[in-house]
């Protein structure tokens, strides 16, 4: 009889603790639920084990690009990459590998001119192809991996 009551009491207190804890965490849960748009637009870095994984950066990701040439788009994308890498604790020199996806191979030379200017000390391993389509009306998309150095 006493045991039964103790069990009931224990179960009740456990439930109470769980409710209290979930009330405590509710603001965070609500904040998470309220901000799915913000999270979807954010292309910040995934950092793990000393490596920064740079998600594909297009020219219109952080707001519409000013200008419509491949030079304008490349500059915008490289600035995005610089910001993401530095936010993750790396530098342009610590980028290890980049993948460049172009809307057309015709833009290859112009893209290179702007691209190389971001690596005065030598660039990372790069792979470039032209693809059938890129989301967000960008003329190029670049993703890659950088090392954390700070």
């Amino acid at each position, binding site marked *: 009889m006493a045991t039964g009551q103790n069990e009931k009491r224990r179960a009740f207190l456990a*439930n109470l603790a*769980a409710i209290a804890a979930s009330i405590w965490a509710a603001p*965070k849960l609500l904040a998470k639920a309220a901000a799915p748009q913000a999270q979807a637009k954010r292309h910040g870095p995934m950092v793990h084990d000393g490596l920064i994984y740079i998600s594909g950066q297009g020219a219109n990701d952080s707001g519409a690009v000013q200008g419509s040439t491949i030079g304008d788009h490349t500059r915008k994308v490289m600035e995005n990459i610089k910001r993401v890498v530095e936010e993750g604790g790396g530098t342009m020199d610590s980028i*290890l590998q980049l993948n460049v996806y172009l809307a057309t191979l015709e833009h290859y030379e112009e893209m290179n001119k702007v691209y190389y200017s971001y690596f*005065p*000390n030598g660039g990372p391993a790069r792979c470039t*192809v*032209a693809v059938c389509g890129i989301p967000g009306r960008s003329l190029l998309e670049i993703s890659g991996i950088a*090392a954390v150095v700070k």
Partner: protein
Amino acid sequence: MLNVLGIRKELTSLIHSPAAESGSGAGPAAISSAGAAQNESGIRKLSYDGSPAKGGIAPVVVHNGLIYVAGQGANENQAEATLDITTHVQRAMDNVKKLVEVAGGDMDHVLQLTVYLASLEFYDAMNRAYRPYFPNGGPARCTVSVAGIPGKSLVEISCIAAVVRH
């Protein structure tokens, strides 16, 4: 009846949200000179012959035991272009092999590799030319055909390998 364990798991993952990891405790923050860029933070950018690469594209980059090989096509170091998929795959893979080995790896330790083809019609011929490079089994591979590849190559191949010799 409340699922106490379930709630506790959800709360743990919320409260311990992933924080940005700091690096492996490697060197100073600012990298200012070309020479420093090679050695600080343990990043080595190499050419086909193993000498330091200083150009806009490093053929291969080594960091923390991993080897990052830049996209290799068929016409990188060749004087004249041919249009045979087998030759193109072999040239690209020969370049991959050279770079992996110069960086301290070997073909058995290529981890992940991506093949970009000018056309899916080349898929079978590419596979036949590709297989002999991995007699002991090949890496995780992803293959797609694309709209265009620089340098008039029918194929572009990039990969990540592990360092096995220092």
